[in-house]
């Protein structure tokens, strides 16, 4: 019988690899009965999805929040390229 502690480890693992069938079934059965672990899984998936979208947004040419190189850094980098 898997404990909540075991199940949270397996939920995380399942985000990185495909679990063996026995473990997968054990986790699914536990999640049907355990509100907290089911919630835990939903929240981890929400965090993953949010991070992916965040990255996608920042990696457009404009970006959203992370801003730009400072003028200092810009000058320093230009200088280093010129001296080559």
């Amino acid at each position, binding site marked *: 019988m898997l*404990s*909540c*502690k*075991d199940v*949270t*480890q397996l939920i*995380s*693992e399942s*985000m*990185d*690899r495909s679990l063996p069938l026995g473990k997968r079934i054990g986790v699914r059965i536990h999640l049907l009965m355990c*509100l*907290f672990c089911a*919630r*835990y899984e*939903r*929240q*981890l998936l*929400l*965090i*993953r999805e*949010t*991070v*992916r*979208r*965040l*990255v996608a*947004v*920042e*990696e457009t*040419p404009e*970006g*959203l*929040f*992370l*801003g*730009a*190189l*400072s003028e200092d*850094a*810009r000058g*320093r*980098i*230009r200088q*280093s*390229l*010129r001296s*080559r």
Partner: protein
Amino acid sequence: MGNLERFDPSDWVDRYGDYLFRYALLRLRDRSAAEDLVQETFLAGLKNRETFSGGSSESTWLVGILKHKIADHFRRQAREGSLPDGDPPNQPGEPPFNATGHWTSGPADWGGNPPDLFRQKEFLEEFTKCLSGLSPTQANAFTLREIEGLNTGEICKVLDITETNLWVILHRARMHLRRCLETRWFARGTGKGS
């Protein structure tokens, strides 16, 4: 676009500098380290300009160089042993599970899936703070997995650890990150009338 005649270093800074900077900053969370990697990327690009085939765009080619620099950065940190693999000291509160492996206090209800979290600047700030609160190994493993999108085999090579070890590290990273986000972000609304 992007043939050898167009290789103009000062042009690079204007055209790709900010983009590469944001790319690096998202992964390193350190402005000066990110600036250094942008500079190193341009210098490596100049040095190896003959490896630019023209088959990809200049920006894709430069990001490819930057990706290597970022992996090198993490590799160096792991090798220098500056990465204690314990739980971060600044994780307050009781352990999540009791002796029998049951939740001591389970995850709180976050009140449905909040839409467009990723468009909120404050969320990005809290997320970055929570990520920085992890142990360096946990933060780097999480970053390589969820931001850089590497598979576990690739991450194990960079961090020089076993896969079993990585699964444990990622599990702890997610556990702490979830709890931190709950405290710093999702719990803000509880008790607040809407």
